[in-house]
């Protein structure tokens, strides 16, 4: 019995060990790179940490994380059943554009207006992703290709739609071009989450939390989630168990896209109120890294998002201090790698430990075991 407790104790210990090891690994490697370019690692890290602790920066980090969180969840949802949705990037940009266009075109009571915009975003994202789903189900085309292609197609499509004679308005004296501004009724105010910070945290952080919870609940607790994970882990067994895989592919692709549709919303409803040329791009790809970093779990992804938010934001201070800010990219890459490597190392350690233990048990229990066979031989 208490041996069991000892086991669990060690298991917990090990599961903590992995992340710690990972962070340590990436800090070391990053430091080496820094030092090689004649920058003092210690100083650099302290600068980053201190900067991150300023209320203003903390807010920025959280805001960045909120956006990343949606992106990573979208990717993770696909990964949970072995679908690789590289198309989150295209999905959220198209969704944001159309949502912005609709939001800027109508006047509605607050809740309805916001609701409508979010709905449009989710639907557009979902449908756009469903295209990949359909092509996979009915034409057997790998979603990897389709989503890659759709990303580029999206870019062209947006360029086509984002012109003065279509969805956009050209503000006089501006070289930017964007959709008409969303009126106040369609905006989501910020929250003073971080004490004494001039900036506010995106109001949609609440939505992020909700989506995160739903993600966990659907995947871990619902029948649908069970089927989804089953398909991801052993498709043939899932089919035999009555899962309609084609339908699952379509639905999960659509859901993944629907979540992707939300990626642009904090920015759109909380900051820019318009989709314009300088609307943030490429978040979908960051999302992939974060999803993998967070091992496709709601919590892990949240931590990953904050980590990436922190690194991205701190690149600014590095630039100011004359430290090459590209170091941040390197760190991000290294972290993603070292996390998985750390987990693998811990896994192996666990096996070795187990083997030793078995060995010990035997040397003690050997005597009693051996007697029976002899009897049989006689």
């Amino acid at each position, binding site marked *: 019995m208490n041996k069991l407790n000892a086991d669990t104790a060690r298991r917990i210990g090990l599961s903590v060990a992995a992340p710690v090891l990972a962070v340590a690994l990436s800090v070391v490697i990053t430091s080496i790179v820094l030092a090689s370019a004649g920058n003092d690692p210690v100083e650099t890290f302290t600068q980053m940490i201190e900067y991150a602790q300023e209320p203003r920066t903390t807010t920025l980090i959280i805001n960045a994380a909120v956006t990343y969180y949606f992106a990573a969840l979208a990717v993770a949802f696909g990964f949970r059943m072995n679908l690789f949705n590289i198309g989150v990037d295209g999905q959220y940009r198209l969704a944001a554009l159309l949502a912005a266009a609709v939001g800027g075109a109508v006047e509605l009571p607050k809740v309805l207006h916001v609701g409508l915009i979010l709905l449009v975003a989710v639907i557009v994202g979902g449908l756009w992703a469903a295209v990949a789903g359909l092509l996979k189900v009915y034409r057997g085309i790998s979603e990897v290709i389709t989503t890659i292609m759709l990303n580029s197609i999206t870019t062209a499509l947006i360029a086509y739609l984002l012109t003065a004679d279509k969805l956009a308005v050209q503000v006089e004296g501006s070289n930017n071009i964007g959709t008409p501004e969303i009126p106040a009724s369609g905006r989501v105010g910020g929250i003073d989450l971080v004490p004494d910070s001039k900036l506010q945290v995106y109001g949609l952080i609440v939505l992020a939390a909700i989506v995160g919870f739903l993600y966990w609940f659907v995947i871990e*607790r*619902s*029948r*649908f*989630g*069970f*089927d989804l*994970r*089953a398909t991801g*882990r*052993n498709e*043939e*067994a*899932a*089919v*035999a*168990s*009555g*899962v*309609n895989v084609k339908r699952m592919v379509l639905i999960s692709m659509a859901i993944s896209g629907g979540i992707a549709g939300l990626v642009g919303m904090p920015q759109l409803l909380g900051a820019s109120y318009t989709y314009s040329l300088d609307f943030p791009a490429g978040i979908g790809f960051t999302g992939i890294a974060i999803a993998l970093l967070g091992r496709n779990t709601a919590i892990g992804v949240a931590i990953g998002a904050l980590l990436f938010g922190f690194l991205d934001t701190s690149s600014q201070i590095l630039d100011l201090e004359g430290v090459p800010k590209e170091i941040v990219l390197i760190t991000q890459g290294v972290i993603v790698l070292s996390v998985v490597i750390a987990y693998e190392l811990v896994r192996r350690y666990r*096996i070795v430990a*187990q*083997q030793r233990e*078995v*060995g010990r048990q*035997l040397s003690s229990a050997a005597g009693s*075991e*051996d007697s029976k*066979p002899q009897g*049989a*031989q006689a």
Partner: protein
Amino acid sequence: MKPESESAGVPAVELKGITKRFPGVVANRDVNLRVMPGTVHAVVGENGAGKSTLMKTLYGMHKPDEGTITLNGEQVVLHNPSDAIARGVGMVHQHFMLADNLTVLENIVLGAEPKRWGGFGLNRAAARTRIREIGKQYGLEVDPDVLVENLGVGDRQRVEIIKVLYRGARVLVLDEPTAVLVPQEVDALFEALQVLKAQGLSIIFISHKLDEVRSVADDITVIRRGTTVATADPKTVSSRQLAELMVGSELPSPQTSESTVTDRPVLEMKHVELVKDGRHLLRDVTLTIHAGEVLGLAGVEGNGQAELVESIMGMRTVDGGTITLAAENITTWTTRRRREAGIGYIPEDRHRHGLILDAPLWENRVLGHQTRHPNTSGPLVNRAGARADTERIVGEYDVRTPSIDVLASSLSGGNQQKLIVGREMSGNPKLLIAAHPTRGVDVGAQAAIWDLLRNARAEGLAVLLISADLDELIGLSDSLTVILRGELVAQVDPSTVTPEQLGSAMTGAGEAA
């Protein structure tokens, strides 16, 4: 039992005090084995006794934690299979080791390729001739240029053996080679073995079919719980004695008690057709299974059994005919709906279709019953309910496991199978499809599974039984149907037919009575 020292001369293989540990288990503990040249040496033991592990050690796939390997009197250390191959040891694995997407030729020559272009190119021509030679020599003919995925199990088995012979092996390890073969194929294999033996090769032969063992082996070594417990002389020892050595239990034989067949049809298939790219996988299949009846489906693997099962399960949509379950036409139903209507399914390949290996037992219990109490309530998974019921299965069906939270992959084959059987029996099904329910399962577990089938049948369950083990098929079935090239070609009476007759019916050789 005969004393070790009788057989003279230098043993071709001598394993002394082999111990091999895996996380959580000691697969082998102080195992000893001597194989004389020009003999067939059988190794028998329960599932998980450590037979395959021992052989993998001999084949250099892993190093023993303790003990020595001696080949032809010379003690050796085998770092990898190449070392073993170089010393003339060859192994046919329990699970086929063939790459589907490569041709037979490519599979055979892999690692020992004939060269051309001055050692740079792969000489397919030379390989073809060599393979044909071997084929003739030992009666193991296969077309070198087909993709392995298009081969039936018999042919795959042959390819595996050719692979070994191609490398000029002198010691031949066969790990359960007959598990998937029909009698005729088994005989063919044994003939080949005799030829090999005559040429002075040593053969280590693993099987759970003890009659087989006694008919082909010159010596027998019995392994129990990872260690050698006895050697036996096949001429004198009886299957029962062997079984007792292995498990200390009686050797069960599948015998149906008095018939429980009712006149209530549960499953009816009428003129079912299944066509793929113009080829008929199933042609005009018509059969009926009544409540309390076990219908045995005999056939050489790859003659449409899988397709038939998948049609009943709704995993394939039939191109003609109707399927009725308890008077309801289910032809167009989804797999899930059919399962809900009361079809249980023990799949042929438990790892592919039966289990999620990297999921805990209780999740595997939910699999296939996602929509039913006690696993789920409404759209949600009812963890408590599912876990409780898993405990029940583990108890009732004697699944040997530390807990229901371990991954399915950590269970031994037999126990995995028992879990599946228990799962498919729960939620009292109307129809049970049992494909090779005892394949690779040791005698103990076998008996248990047979009893389960009998009891369920007695309670009015209709069973479609598919098995390559003809004794099992004949012993359990109330009626037998033979399937050949997607057609039901013969009805035979299990009470009168012999395995040999059945086998020839299956191969289309001669019609059985």
